[in-house]
């Protein structure tokens, strides 16, 4: 149930981040890492880890321009910024998040598919890096628990509404024994009567025969 709360929260955060999407997109226009590229040009032997070796050939088509920016955002929103508190890499100004975003963009430009990219980051950071838990094993609980809770709530509401609209006669049998006038301790009866007299006046309606 706590995991479902987390998912609900993530969904809310996702909606908020989607609403503010234009802001992050502006941030995407100025990717700093490109400035460091000349290094790779001077010394051709310098190679970061080869992703093709890990992922195999790209399974999508190379993207560019507007489509690349949009897709980078979309994939970035699925990845957790590892050093932030509940932010996606699309929403974080952290250097690590920027680097990850730049890599997502590069991989998309090379034609890697969304699932391949998510698999790459999961391979190095673990499933924690995925903002949406995968649909397998115990994770089904996370996805189904909120729906189940909603259905359960609906059943409870419908049942109690029915009971209420059934009118006065219906609840009577169930509650009558408990709702009957409470038995008054004979010793306290005079005090009770006195209290009622003070509260309601000399002769409260239908109260005199209580004791």
């Amino acid at each position, binding site marked *: *149930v706590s995991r479902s709360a987390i998912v609900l929260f993530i969904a809310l955060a996702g909606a908020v981040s989607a609403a503010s999407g234009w802001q992050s997109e502006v941030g995407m226009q100025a990717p700093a890492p490109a400035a460091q590229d000349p290094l790779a040009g001077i010394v051709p032997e310098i190679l970061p*880890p080869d992703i093709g070796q890990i992922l195999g050939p790209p399974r999508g088509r190379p993207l560019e321009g507007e489509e690349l920016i949009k897709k980078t955002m979309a994939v970035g929103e699925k990845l957790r910024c590892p050093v932030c508190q509940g932010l996606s890499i699309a929403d974080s100004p952290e250097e690590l998040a920027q680097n990850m975003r730049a890599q997502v963009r590069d991989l998309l430009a090379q034609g890697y598919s969304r699932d391949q990219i998510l698999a790459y980051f999961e391979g190095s950071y*673990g499933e924690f890096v995925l903002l949406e838990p995968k649909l397998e094993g115990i994770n089904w609980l996370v996805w189904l628990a909120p729906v189940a809770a909603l259905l359960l709530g609906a059943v409870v509401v419908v049942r109690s509404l029915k009971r209420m609209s059934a009118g006065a006669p219906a609840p009577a049998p169930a509650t009558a024994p408990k709702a009957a006038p409470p038995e008054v301790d004979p010793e306290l009866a005079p005090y009770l009567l006195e209290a009622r007299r003070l509260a309601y006046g000399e002769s409260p309606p239908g109260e005199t025969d209580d004791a």
Partner: protein
Amino acid sequence: VNRRVLLVGALLTLPVVWVLAANMGRDPHRVQSPLVGRPAPAFALPEVGTGTPVALAELLGKPVVVNFWATWCVPCWEEHDVLVGAARALDGRVAFLGIVYNDEEEKILRFLREMGGAYPSLLDPEGRTSIAYGVYGVPETFFIDAQGTIVAKHEGPLTWPLLNAYIAQTERGS
């Protein structure tokens, strides 16, 4: 009725309380690295100062300790002496490598001049290698066996006893 409500309420809330209590001491950011037991991602990166590329593959054949660090990271200062001392003591038996995370070359050079060094530190343009190793924050140290498999990952500063234990584990290759 009250007893039933109490029972149902307890049944609903107790598991939640239990899950929360059981995970109180756990930092969700600290996850066992999925890379342990897998081949270390290969890289060839420029050495700080000289720009000479150094490849992980050149060093394999003996255990390799890869330390991700930065000059702005205080725990990295603490473990620097331990790593340099170990690299000197184990010269020829275990290779050491630093990968500088998110830093500037002049600052790194100044740091190494002042604190001393015994093994190459490499730059990681765009952080690609750090990402491939799933680095969250420095310091993080990977222990790679002679065949290139990641045997262990340590987060936080290393001490002599820790480093000794990791190196023994790596030399056993498990």
